[in-house]
């Protein structure tokens, strides 16, 4: 009997679906057309995006399958049953560090781009701090609230994305898509690798599925949630290539923001669509950052249950802030992004696959 559906501190499969989409849609899309376009010829990048997307989809399913095999158990608990408690503690803490770095990176990219396009004179450090403080405010409260916020934000963000695509139809030149299928297969693989990085973030499910009330529905929700960014990114890529052509696209630092700058709406009111678009996009980056920060807080508290949530948040915030602000310039920051991509591959793909393999082989199942 559900007398008060939202008061129970649990989440349904719908929250999982929205969480996966929200956490994956983030800063990756800004640079994705450039990185994928550099590896592929013509407009073939969409093949790479679908390819990379399929890989991400598969592993999102594995993550969800693994976590839902142990209903209402935390990552620490089920990992401990699979690979002894000390190993589980190390893995949990490493996962928490990875998620913190992920948060820091998102914060830094938001600050960088805001600095360039919105706030010319505000120091990057201040923009980053303000963004992080809002994230902290969200994370300091319950995780369920955090997850439900996605239900509110994601539709607005998707609306902005669709608006971006529609408004650029006038600038779309089909000739720019040619030549098709002239990429070597190594190019597709290289492009797919770049794409996989942009689709990371679903490793938060390892943490959040413990709160799901219908774990058996979670894998399906994760797969659907994952498909939304895959489709969105493919469409955005095709649009960007069609508008700029590959040659110019790969020279733009953030092609997806430049495409918003391309738009000229008659009537002067929305003349600067990029500010509007980027402001809305910050909402989904906020979701990405707060979900991964929240997940790392939960992970650390599962190891040290005695620390109060709010204190833990206050301890972690300066660490996240400083590591986010550590790279001195844009190119170093991109390097950091690549490293976080690699550690994401480890935590979102390698470890869940191994753990699920162990669970299958040894036939371990959580008691529902």
């Amino acid at each position, binding site marked *: 009997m559900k007398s008060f559906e939202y008061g129970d501190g649990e989440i349904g499969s719908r929250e999982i679906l929205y969480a996966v989409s929200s956490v994956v849609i983030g800063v990756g899309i800004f640079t994705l057309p450039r990185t994928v376009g550099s590896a592929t*010829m013509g407009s073939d990048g969409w093949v790479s995006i679908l390819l990379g997307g399929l890989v991400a989809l598969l592993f999102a399913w594995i993550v969800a399958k693994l976590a839902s095999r142990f209903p209402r158990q935390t990552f620490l608990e089920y990992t401990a049953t699979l690979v002894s408690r000390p190993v589980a503690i190390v893995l949990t803490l490493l996962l928490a560090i990875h998620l913190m770095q992920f948060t820091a990176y998102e914060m830094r990219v938001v600050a960088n781009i805001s600095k360039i396009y*919105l*706030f010319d004179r505000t120091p990057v450090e201040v923009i980053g701090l303000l963004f992080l403080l809002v994230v902290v405010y969200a994370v300091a409260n319950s995780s369920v609230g955090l997850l439900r916020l996605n239900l509110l934000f994601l539709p607005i963000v998707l609306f902005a994305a669709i608006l971006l695509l529609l408004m650029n139809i006038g600038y779309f030149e089909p000739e720019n898509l040619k030549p098709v299928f002239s990429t070597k297969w190594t190019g597709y693989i290289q492009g797919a690798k770049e794409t996989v990085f942009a689709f990371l973030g679903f490793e938060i499910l390892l943490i959040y599925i413990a709160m799901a009330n219908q774990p058996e529905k979670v894998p399906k929700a994760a797969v659907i949630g994952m498909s939304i960014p895959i489709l969105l990114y493919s469409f955005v890529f095709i649009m960007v290539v069609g508008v700029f052509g590959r040659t110019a696209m790969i020279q733009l630092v953030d092609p997806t923001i430049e495409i918003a700058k*391309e738009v000229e709406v008659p009537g002067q009111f929305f003349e600067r669509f990029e500010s509007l678009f980027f402001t809305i996009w910050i909402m989904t980056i906020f979701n990405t950052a707060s979900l991964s920060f929240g997940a790392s807080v939960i992970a650390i508290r599962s190891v040290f249950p005695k620390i109060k949530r709010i204190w833990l948040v206050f301890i972690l915030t300066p660490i996240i802030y400083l590591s986010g602000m550590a790279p001195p310039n844009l190119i170093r920051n991109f390097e950091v992004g690549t490293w976080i991509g690699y550690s994401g591959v480890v935590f979102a793909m390698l470890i869940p696959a191994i753990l699920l393999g162990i669970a299958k082989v040894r036939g371990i199942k959580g008691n529902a």
Partner: protein
Amino acid sequence: MPKTLWKLSWLICIVFLGGCWDRVEIEERGFVVGAAVDFSKKDEGMATEEKSEERPHGKQRYLLTLQMVVPGGLSQGGGKGGGGAGAGSGGDAYYNVSSVGDTMFQTVRQLGNRVSRSPFFPHMKILIISEEVARSGHLPDIIDYFLRDAEMRRGVKIMIANGEAREVLGVNPVNEKLPAMYIDSVTRNERSSSSTLPEHLRIGDLNEILLTQESFTIPRIKPAGNEVKIGGVSVFEGRKNSMVDWLGGDDVIGLAILKGKLKGGAINIKVGDNLVSYEAKGSIRRKIEADVSDKENMKFTFTVKSEGVIVESMETINYLKDPEKWELLQMKVADEMKRMAEQAIRKLQKEMKLDVIGLGNYLEQNEPELWKTVEKDWDHGKNYFSKATLHVQAKVIIRNPGVVNQTEPIQGR
């Protein structure tokens, strides 16, 4: 109640401490609507900076002119005349300021020393480059700032001035308050202007072109009293990105036909001993067929289809009863289009030997393998482009003859 007071003081703090770091009041922004770039002349006393031998110097010194809006002048409803370079008399809706510098950015910042409102670029509409600068091959150097700075937008239209660029910004249009906005409006007239109005070029598109080795064209603008005239194009060589020559008149229409970009505009044909005017409706459709088996002699066939109406008929024709005449008219219009296209081909292929039609692009998109082998010698070196054979076929459909059949009886019957 101290606790309420405590809360109240927090509230007051929130209200008064909130703010915006980047706040610039709209009154403090100097909206730039147009910019013009010339070379600086030695004798011009506009340089405000001190000379220094040790400071790095660029290859050229530029004279940058910005057109800034005077919001007061916009609302007063009057105020025409005056407002030449460097001067702004009361009542004008704009003023032009010029400064000399080695880089665009330095020059803009120098201008900031002299104007009360700091230059603000996102509303810039046009960028005009002088012919001299265009011919020198420094175009990419100039464009860089207008692309790289995040304040700039890729929709700025770029034009080459026949003569000095800043003179173009000094025209005094009769029905518009801002010359830059006036020029911007003229470029939008593509549907109801003569077909010699070249398609406008956005600075973002120019960026795409500059990144390749393609040769290209940029529209020409020249001041004519109180007005400007936009017509003709300047042809740029794609490797050095320097201007080579002008192209005007029928050649521009021919080029537009070859590129499939012709939109409207009158085409006159002679029927009997009188003229009939045809207007294409909607843009024409162009198809290229290529036979590239022989690298030394590639064959390209342009098939152009146009649909339109008769808008003026000095020759009296009974349109409703005379289907053969329609056929004849269609053929004559097609021949005229073919003539203009072939004239443009002669000029581009045999005289300038530069491919601004976009055939290289066509090959790159449709024959990527072949393109890699000819890319290096396309419109330079061995110049495969000038060795190619280009055919034009035109097909015209006249949809209707207007709302009147005959305006006078057919003579001689």
